[in-house]
């Protein structure tokens, strides 16, 4: 134990005295959290829209007003030229074009049915689908409004017979958005970003660590001492583990103070899981470090591993959207499980029972990675 502590203390001194590392550990996460949380959003609001109103009636203007007032669309241009609207779509000024035909109102009055067309720039994939569903909802509610305005005669005729609500089947649908009723992306992103930050910092620092000692020659001096491989790895891991936990705490505080992220579950549980998860992240770093010869190699391997881990973890894009085989692969990504757990605890208020499955996977992962790291580090050249 004394050996581990001695090594750990020296390691803390290395970190504390290296200003670049200190900045990296404490400033970078905060800045990143602030930038990332604002940047990492798929929120779709203010979709720039072009309106071609060929009808120019009170009804068509009403529809345009509904679009503008919905908060989902921003009408940036309006004309009656389809060519101009196409131009705007092509050069990227607008994402959607709404075209109202010239017989819009009259058709509604006569037959009760009228088409409008939207053209969506679907370059951006699923965002286009959401835009479409917003447009659909606006049209549905406007139709309902119009029913009473445009066809009063029909209403009147009907009122002689039993009221309309009687005869026609009617389903009353209510929609609840649990856990994130305001649909704020930050509630979703911040817990995930916290995970990615401690992962990046922890893994990068540890992966450089042994490689650097190899380059400096100080590792050889340690290798002629009777310290065991397990003690060595423990002594290296402990300081970074504590550091990363502190980082996690700082990040959580910033998330709470600045972004007011929800904290529905138990923070003690969250830190407990973080403690286990960090063993995985740091052991991966140490394993890489023992594997390579130079810091440069360590960096490349770490980057590669981290990129794969982060992008497959469901941090940015939901795991549910991935094809089956990628979902299976992502089970091997520790980041995925911790992202899932921290969202479950913070946003949904999950307890130990609800996170049991990913937690067990993390514990197994920790054991495997620690063993690998200890075995990869060899005090002797074969």
């Amino acid at each position, binding site marked *: 134990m004394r050996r581990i502590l001695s090594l750990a203390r020296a390691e803390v001194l290395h970190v504390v005295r290296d200003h*670049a590392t200190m900045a990296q550990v404490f400033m970078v996460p905060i800045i990143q959290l602030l*930038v990332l949380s*604002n*940047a990492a959003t*798929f*929120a*779709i609001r203010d979709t720039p829209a072009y309106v071609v109103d060929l009808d120019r009636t009170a009804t068509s203007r009403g529809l345009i007003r509904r679009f503008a007032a919905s908060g989902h669309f921003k009408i940036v241009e309006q004309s009656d030229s389809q060519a101009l609207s196409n131009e705007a*779509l092509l*050069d*990227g000024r607008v994402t959607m074009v709404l075209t109202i035909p010239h017989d819009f109102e009259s058709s509604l009055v006569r037959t*009760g*049915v*009228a088409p*409008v*067309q*939207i*053209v969506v720039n679907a370059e*951006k*994939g*699923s*965002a286009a689908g*959401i835009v479409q*569903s917003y*447009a*659909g909802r606006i049209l549905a509610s406007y*139709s*309902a409004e119009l*029913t009473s305005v445009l*066809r009063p005669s029909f209403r009147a005729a*009907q009122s002689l017979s039993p009221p309309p609500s009687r*005869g*026609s*089947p*009617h*389903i*009353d*649908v209510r*929609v*609840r*958005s649990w856990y*994130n009723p305001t*649909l704020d*992306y930050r509630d979703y992103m911040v817990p995930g970003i916290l995970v990615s930050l401690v992962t990046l910092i922890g893994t990068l620092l540890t992966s450089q660590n042994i490689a*650097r000692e190899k380059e400096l020659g100080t590792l050889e001096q340690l290798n002629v001492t009777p310290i065991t491989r397990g003690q060595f790895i423990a002594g290296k891991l402990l300081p970074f583990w504590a550091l990363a936990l502190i980082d996690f705490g700082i990040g959580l505080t910033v998330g709470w103070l600045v972004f007011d992220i929800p904290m529905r579950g138990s923070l003690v549980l969250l830190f407990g899981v973080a403690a286990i998860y960090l063993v995985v992240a740091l052991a991966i770093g140490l394993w890489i470090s023992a594997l390579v010869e130079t810091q440069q*190699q360590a*960096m*490349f391997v770490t980057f590669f591993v981290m990129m*794969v881990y982060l992008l*497959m973890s469901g941090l940015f894009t939901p795991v*549910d959207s*991935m*094809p089956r085989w*990628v979902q299976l692969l*992502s089970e091997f990504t520790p980041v995925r499980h911790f992202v899932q757990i921290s*969202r479950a605890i913070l946003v949904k*208020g*999950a307890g130990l029972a*609800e*996170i049991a*499955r990913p937690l067990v996977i993390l514990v197994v992962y920790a054991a495997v990675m620690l063993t690998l790291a200890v075995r990869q580090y060899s005090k002797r050249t074969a």
Partner: protein
Amino acid sequence: MSALLGLLRKEAYHIRRDRRTLAVLIFMPVVQVILFGFAIRTDVENVRLAIVDPAPDHATLALRNRFAATDNFRLTAVVPRVEELEGLFQRGTVQQAIVFAPGFADRIARGLPARVLIITDATEPNTGSAAQGYALTVIQTYERDLIAQQKTASAAGANVRIVLAVRMRFNPTRESSNLFVPGLMAFILTVISALMTAISLTREKETGTLEALLVSPLKPWQIIVGKVLPYLAVGFVSVLLVILEARLIFDVPLRGSLFLLLAEGLLFILVSLSLGILISSRTSSQRVAMMGAMIGTMLPTMLLSGFIFPIESMPLPLQIVTNVVPARWFVEIARSIMLKGVGLAYLWQETLVLAGMAVVLLVASTRSFSERLA
């Protein structure tokens, strides 16, 4: 000139000898495109659905059948009480629940509003909205069919309906890969060009070999060209590989001119390389250079270029910041050429911005390089 050639040859040797790095340089893009092309998607499919139906009757069963028949949903749980949903949501077994009120069929028959509650896990807002949209469509279709059944003759068209005709342009099937692959190109080029140059120059500084080059008759710009050209070549090969993969594996269309795309790619590589030189001229150790390259180039490319996250969704200050991120312009150019098939007539502004950045950064980095070292 022959001195320059000698330097070029030396740099090519370095790259070739360091097999591990070369392997990373060549294979990383290939693997990344495959993996991320598949992994980075935002399509919402197979929503995990729970049904809460305390008193099943013929109407709820009919509606449940409709949910089961849709490709968008996968029924993962049927529970009797709403209280049991919380745990399912927290575990992630369920993303959305349809809750039927008792007496559903009865109320429909009597013309009273029959109540259905849709509860959605909106942790990820877009997935939540999309899932709600799917569920609403299923229920509304069912309702419309009921109305049609009941009022075959009388009073058709009692309600006003505006029919929506939708056209999806440029990516009609809304393939996520079409969206992400052009962005991925920018990302990979940044990693190779900026990161590699920054590291390789700083390494020469650390090992002291750069001093040997500086006391030689080579001029600073020649040293830079010598260091940078091989990486330019490697970067160019990666672009070709990525475009090839995009075509063969993901069927990403290339509607515009290949030549224009390659030329723009070259311009972007130049910008990234200059950034790499600038970083290396201001740092003294590989570790700092690496951090600088990561914070200065990789993260902005990933987050602020529109590669994954749409720029329109960001708050205004960040949107302004994205203007100085070179990748933002290249992502826009690459997407426009590949998906929209437009030419320089539409892209001259973006191209001009990139070219401007290239000039400024090249001058700045050459100057900074010679100031610091010569």
